[in-house]
């Protein structure tokens, strides 16, 4: 039996397993390797990731009506939208534009403010009958050791030497296109600190909300910029219905922190993972940045 025939038989077997996971091959035509592959497929056929879904209760409890099911998060997001609106109102009052513009003169453009606090998603592609669409591969970010990243990067890679208690280096990534090295540090409850290092000539400013506050700080005697907040997806409503994410809104109250500075032609970005409060103050983050060696 050639590979094509084996593949055809295997696909048919998987379809049987997906219909009935207890299904057994009736004959003994399979060799040990094929039997092992079928056993593996049997394990995959019974996997159900929906238990991890935040919607899992709804997934497991069929709806009695589409409006209730599709749009059940409406109240929560309406409340969130109200909160964000109030917050933006307060910020508009408290942050006088000329003062902010004056301060901006002294910044290095490591961050760039968007024209508003909302990032619109790309417009929908009108969908008629689905047609085959090539899917671009996501950016490749392989796992590396520090020495491997150092060998790949065009600059000497540095690492944090005074991590907060409980944090250890989890992963190292290298973006070949941008000559950018990224370290991810995690603690035992999976909170994260992220360090990016990339040449200044190719580094791009990070886009932040129009009302974000950029604070000029010093990192070991070098000017840096600090921002608190992040973009978060929002769920607009249509006729009282919560729908999928189509835009992001800037939230100053998100615990996400970003510190950027340039040293010896390299832009360093130290940030916490979005949506997680690590209990680090701005001073803590700066102190951490100063431990870079």
């Amino acid at each position: 039996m050639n590979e094509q025939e084996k593949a055809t038989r295997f696909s048919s077997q998987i379809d049987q397993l997906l219909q009935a996971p207890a299904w057994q091959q009736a004959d003994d035509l399979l060799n040990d390797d094929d039997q092992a592959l079928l056993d593996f497929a049997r394990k995959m056929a019974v996997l159900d990731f929906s238990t991890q879904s935040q919607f899992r209760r709804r997934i497991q409890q069929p709806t009695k009506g589409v409006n209730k099911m599709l749009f059940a998060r409406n109240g929560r997001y309406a409340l969130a939208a109200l909160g964000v609106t109030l917050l933006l109102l307060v910020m508009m009052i408290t942050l006088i534009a000329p003062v902010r513009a004056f301060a901006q003169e002294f910044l290095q453009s490591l961050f760039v403010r968007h024209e508003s606090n909302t990032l619109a998603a790309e417009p929908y592609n009108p969908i008629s009958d689905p047609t085959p669409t090539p899917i671009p591969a996501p950016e490749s970010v392989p796992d590396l050791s520090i020495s491997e990243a150092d060998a790949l990067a065009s600059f000497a890679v540095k690492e944090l030497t005074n991590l907060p208690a409980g944090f250890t280096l989890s992963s190292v990534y290298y973006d070949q296109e941008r000559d950018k090295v990224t370290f991810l540090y995690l603690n035992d409850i999976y909170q994260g600190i992220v360090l990016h290092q990339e040449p200044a000539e190719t580094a791009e400013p990070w886009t932040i909300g129009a009302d974000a506050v950029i604070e000029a700080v010093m990192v070991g005697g070098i000017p840096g910029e600090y921002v608190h907040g992040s973009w978060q997806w929002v769920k607009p409503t249509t006729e009282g219905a919560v729908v999928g994410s189509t835009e992001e809104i800037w939230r100053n109250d998100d615990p996400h922190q970003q510190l950027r500075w340039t040293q010896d032609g390299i832009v360093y970005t130290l940030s916490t993972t979005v949506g997680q409060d690590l209990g680090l103050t701005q001073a803590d983050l700066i102190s951490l940045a100063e431990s870079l060696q």
Partner: protein
Amino acid sequence: MNTADLKMPNEQSLAQQAQADPAAFARLYDHYLRRVYNYMRYRLTDAQTADDLTAQVFHRAWEKRHNHDPEKAPFGAWLFGIARHVIHDHYRRQKRFGWLSLDVLRERFSLTPPPEEAFIQSEMQTMVLQAVARLNEREREIVALKFGGNLNNLQIAELTGLTSSNVGIILYRAMKQLKAAMETQGVSK
């Protein structure tokens, strides 16, 4: 996955009713929600993003339901076509906003279960997602459509533009890779 209800009785007539009747659409939604979500997990690995994009799929399906002709295409195939569009838009969006490269990290990061959920995430699930994430884009898509969407090779071929036999070969090789990857982690033997 409980697939006892894989084939929906009267799906075609239900899809026709769904054009005007939300209750009929709700029945299709109930039937396909788990499969679309599982497809998203195979494609994305990150549970939160999978939730968001799953919601988008059904919202788009609801908005575009009048474009679906049940006599030309089964509802499931049409729905997974939308799901592929949603994935495509998601990746395009990631490329557009460079600073959001943290999303890539988040997907990677999310493979490690938070402690409060650790008890419900089996080692097998986590390892499978880690191994699937290492497949190339085409292999990952086909594994997702097969094991997440529970589609047969002909349906996958129609969605991807491949031949049915190509789908079979790619799936066969991808499964061998996955099994080998799992064995190196001591899971599958």
